[in-house]
C-alpha cells in the first residue's frame, strides 16, 4: 500500500489543483512520560502523533490544512481544504509573498548514543523512584513529584521549490518538583535538566544528588521571607539572563510581531536599544540548547545577532516576513506540530559573554538581589506595550558585595527599551539550557527553545512578588 502521507504525491496533487506554491510537512513524534507523585506511579505514558500539514499559496493567499487520517481520500480532502481556505481569503485576506531562497536538500539527526526507546521501562522507573526517595529524605519536604520525559521527533519538509529536508531530534530529561513546609508556610521549587541526547544523558548524571539539591532549596525557601517590593540592582545568573532576554527582547524581535505592528522594536533597526556591552544571538545549534538545524520552512537556521553592541541589527524571520518587511530568512519559522501553520519563533536566545569574572559583578553592589534561575517559572511579555515580566527561583539579598539571606516569590518587571540599557556589567561565563518539559508558548503553540547567557548586572529593575 503506498504511503498516504507521501509528501511528493501530496505536492503533485496540490499543484495539479492549481496551487502556485505548496509545502508539505510530515511529522512522526513520540513522547514518553513517567510521572511519580509522592512515591506513587501516577503516569507511565507514551504519546505518538503522525500526520501531515499542507500549506498552499494561491494568488498570494495562504491556506493551510492538516490531517492524521492515513488514507489517500482523507489526504486529498486535506489538500482541497487548504486550497479552499486560500480561496476564502480572496475577499478579506492579505496577500503574501515568500522570500525565494536557495533550495535545501538535507537529512540531519541529532547526536545520541543509546536510543531511550530501547531501554527497559523498569530501568527508567528505578531512576525516578531513587530520585524521589532522595528528595523526600530532605528535612521539611512534604511532597515531591518526579518526571522523566523523552521526545523523539522526526520531521520532513518538502516544497514546490524542490526542498527536501529531514530532521530527527531526541530530547531527554528529568524534572523535580519539591514542596517544602515550615510552620504553616509551603513553598515549591521546580527544576529540570534536559539535553539533546539519548539515554546516555540520564546515565551520565546522579539524579539522586540533583533531587536532593532541589529538595534542600525548597526546604530552605519555605523558611525564607518574601522580598520587599521596590527597585533594586540585580545580578542575574546564567538561567535568568536567558529568561530575561527571551521575554524582554526575543519576542519583540520576532518579525511577525513587527509586521503586525505589534512590536515596540518596529522601525528601530540601527538604533541603540541596549548597553553597548550587550550582544544578543539566536542560534539553532549552541551547546546545551535545543537543536534546530533547519526550521519548518526548510530554511537553514543561521546564527543571527539581533543586537550587536547594543544596536538593533535585525529581526528573526520566516520566508514571508523576510519578504514583507525586508531582511533575509533566518530559519525561525517554526510550528509546534504538523497540524499548525508556522509562526516566527526564537530558537536558542542568549547573550554573548563579556570580560568580567562573575564575582566582580557583586563587588560594588551596596544593596541588591542575586536573582537565581533554579526554580524559576518563566516569564511573559507584552511586546506592544513594551512591558515584560519573569519570576525567579529562590534568590538572595546582596549587601555590600556579599550574598546574604534568601528571599522567595521574586517577580521582576521591566520595560523592553529600558532594561537592556541598564545592563552595566557582563561576565565571561556563558551557559545555555533547554527543557524536554516545556518551551515557549505563542499563538496557542508551544515549541522547544533554549536560552541562557553569562552572569549580568542590571543597575535598576523593579522587583515585587506574592507572599
Amino acid at each position, binding site marked *: 500500500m503506498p504511503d498516504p502521507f507521501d509528501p511528493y504525491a501530496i505536492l503533485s496533487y496540490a499543484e495539479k489543483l492549481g496551487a502556485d506554491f505548496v509545502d508539505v510537512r510530515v511529522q512522526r513524534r513520540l513522547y514518553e512520560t513517567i510521572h511519580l507523585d509522592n512515591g506513587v506511579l501516577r503516569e507511565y505514558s507514551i504519546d505518538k502523533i503522525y500526520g501531515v500539514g499542507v500549506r498552499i499559496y494561491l494568488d498570494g493567499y495562504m491556506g493551510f490544512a492538516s490531517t492524521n487520517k492515513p488514507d489517500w481520500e482523507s489526504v486529498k480532502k486535506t489538500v482541497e481544504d487548504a486550497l479552499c481556505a486560500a480561496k476564502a481569503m480572496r475577499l478579506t485576506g492579505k496577500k503574501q509573498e515568500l522570500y525565494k531562497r536557495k533550495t535545501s536538500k538535507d537529512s540531519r539527526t541529532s547526536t545520541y548514543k543509546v536510543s531511550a526507546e530501547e531501554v527497559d521501562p523498569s530501568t527508567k522507573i528505578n531512576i525516578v523512584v531513587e530520585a524521589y526517595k532522595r528528595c523526600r529524605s530532605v528535612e521539611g519536604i512534604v511532597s515531591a513529584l518526579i518526571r522523566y520525559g523523552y521526545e523523539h521527533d522526526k520531521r520532513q519538509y518538502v516544497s514546490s521549490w524542490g526542498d527536501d529536508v529531514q530532521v530527527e531530534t531526541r530530547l531527554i530529561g528529568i524534572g523535580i518538583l519539591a514542596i517544602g513546609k515550615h510552620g504553616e508556610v509551603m513553598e515549591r521549587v521546580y527544576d529540570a535538566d534536559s539535553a539533546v541526547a539519548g539515554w546516555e544523558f540520564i546515565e551520565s548524571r546522579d539524579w539522586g544528588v540533583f533531587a536532593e539539591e532541589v529538595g534542600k532549596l525548597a526546604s530552605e525557601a519555605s523558611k525564607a521571607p518574601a522580598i520587599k517590593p521596590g527597585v533594586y540592582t540585580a545580578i542575574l545568573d546564567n538561567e535568568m539572563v536567558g529568561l530575561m532576554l527571551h521575554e524582554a527582547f526575543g519576542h519583540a524581535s520576532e518579525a511577525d510581531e513587527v509586521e503586525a505592528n505589534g512590536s515596540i522594536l518596529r522601525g528601530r533597526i540601527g538604533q541603540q536599544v541596549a548597553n553597548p556591552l550587550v550582544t544578543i544571538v539566536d542560534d539553532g545549534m549552541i551547546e546545551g540548547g535545543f537543536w534546530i538545524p533547519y526550521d519548518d520552512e526548510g530554511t537553514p537556521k543561521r546564527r543571527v545577532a539581533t543586537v550587536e553592541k547594543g544596536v538593533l541589527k535585525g529581526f528573526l524571520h520566516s520566508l514571508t516576513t523576510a519578504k514583507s518587511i525586508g531582511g533575509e530568512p533566518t530559519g525561525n519559522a517554526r510550528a509546534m506540530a504538523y497540524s499548525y501553520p508556522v509562526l516566527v519563533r526564537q530558537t536558542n536566545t542568549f547573550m554573548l559573554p563579556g570580560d568580567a569574572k562573575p564575582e566582580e559583578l557583586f563587588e560594588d553592589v551596596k544593596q541588591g538581589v542575586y536573582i537565581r534561575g533554579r526554580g524559576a517559572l518563566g516569564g*511573559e511579555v507584552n511586546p506592544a506595550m513594551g512591558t515584560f515580566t519573569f519570576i525567579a527561583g529562590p534568590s538572595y539579598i546582596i549587601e555590600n558585595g556579599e550574598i546574604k539571606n534568601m528571599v522567595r516569590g521574586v517577580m521582576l518587571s521591566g520595560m523592553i527599551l529600558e532594561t537592556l540599557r541598564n545592563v552595566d556589567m557582563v561576565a565571561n561565563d556563558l551557559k545555555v539550557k533547554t527543557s524536554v518539559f516545556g518551551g515557549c508558548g505563542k499563538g496557542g503553540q508551544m515549541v522547544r527553545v533554549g536560552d541562557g547567557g553569562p552572569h549580568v548586572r542590571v543597575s535598576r529593575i523593579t522587583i515585587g512578588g506574592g507572599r
Partner: protein
Amino acid sequence: MVREVLLDLAKRFIDKLLEKGASEAEFFGSWAKVRAAEISDGRIKGISVSDAGKYGIRVAVGRRLASIGLSDLSPDIDKLAETLVKIARNTPEDKDFPGFATNYSRGVLSSTYDEKIAGLEPEEIAGLLKNVIETAGDAGRGAGADETIVTQGGLEVIDGGKLVVNSFGEHLYEENTMLSTWIEIKSRKDGGESTFYLEYGSRRLNEDEILRETIEAAKLSTRFMGGKPIESGKYEVLLHPHVTAKFLETVLAPAFSALHIQRGRSPLKGKIDKQVLSENIDILDDPSIDWGVGSCSFDDEGIPTSRKYVVSHGVLETYLYDHYTARRENKYSTGNGFRRSVSSPPSPGFTNMYVVGRNTMKWEELIGEIKKGIIVYGVIGYWTSNFVNGGTQATVTHGLLVEDGEVKGPIKGVVIGGNIYEWMGKDLVGVGDKVVPLGDIHAPAMLVRNVDVAGR
C-alpha cells in the same frame, strides 16, 4: 464520523488488551474539526483547517498501570496492546488504585452544541473576523483615537467531542462546539499609542456579543497611552473580572483538587467546614451553565457532573474528586475528573468555576470606594502565582491610577503581589455585581486593600 471510528477502535483495543493479560482498561477519545483564521496588521493573514481524532488507553494489570496516547486511526492494535501490557507489568503497584470508574451516566444537561458553529464555512469565518476588525476600528476612533487597528489576533471554531469507554462494557460520548477569539487592538493618538487585548470564548456563535466585547476592548485600547510605573507601596487594587479570573485559575482553583490535598500540597488541607475566604464569597462548580466553556454532562471518566457549592459564605464545603481520590477516602467521585491529555490519568478540576459575591457593588461604586489605588485591566505573568501557598503576583500592563474615587491616569510595569486568601479574605473590600466568563472561570470584579505594589 471520527466518533464511530474511535468507538470501534476502543472495543478492539480493549478486547486485545484483555486477551494479552490486562485486568481492565479504559479508553478516552476526543475529536475536533478545527477552522481558524489569523490576523496580522488589520488583515486576515491565513486560514487553516484540521480534522483529527486522538485517543488514550489506560490499562491495569492488577494494580500496575500504564497508558498510551495515539492519533493514528489505523494502528497496529496487537503490537501496541502487547507493549502496553508489558510496560504495565513493569511498573510498581499503586496500592490505592481502586479500578477504573464504572457506572457511567450523565448528570446535568446544558447547551453545548451549536449547529451554527458546526456549519461555519471558511468564508464566513473570514467575514466574521473582518467585521470584528472594522468594528474595533470604528469604536476606537469613536473613543477619540486618531487610528485604531487590530494588530494581531485570530478566531477559531471547533466542532468536536469526547468519548469514554471501559472494559466493563460501558461507554458515553458528548459532542460540543467552541468558538474562541483573541485580538490585540492598538490605538494611536497625538503620537502616543496603547493596546488592549480581548479574549472571548463560548460554545455558541453569538456575533452581537462578540462585537459588543470588541467595542468595549477598542474603547479601552485608547485609555493606556503614556502609562508609567508609580511609587512602590501599599495600594487598593480593583481587579477587572478577567483579571480576577486569571488569578483564580492559577492560584485558587487547583487548591480544591483532592489530589493536591491528599498529596499534601494544598493550603486547604484540613479546612473543610472552616472559614477560608470572606463571608461575602461563594464558589460553585457549575457544569450547567448554557454555552459555558466548561459545561458538560459527565467528566472524562464517565461520572455524572453536578452543580455544587465548593465554598459557601466563605466556608469550605467540599474538595473536588475524581474516582481515584474519592475511593481513597471511601467517597464517591464528584464528577470532576478531567485529563490533561488523552493519555493522562484524570485529575480533579472544576467544570466551570463560578465565583460570586453575596453583597455586591456596581463597577462605578467600587471605583468610588478607592482612596489611593489602581484599577487593573491587564496583567502578564499572573500564571506564576503559587497555589501551594496562595502567593499571588503579576505585572500590570494595563492599569489606571485612582485617587479619591477619581481616575488620574494610566500606569504600567508595576508588580502587584500578595496572597489570594488575604485578598479574598480580610483584605476584600468589595465584589462586583457582574460575573463575567473567561474560559471556564466565571468571576466578578474584586476590590482589595493592602496590595503590595513594586513600582518606581
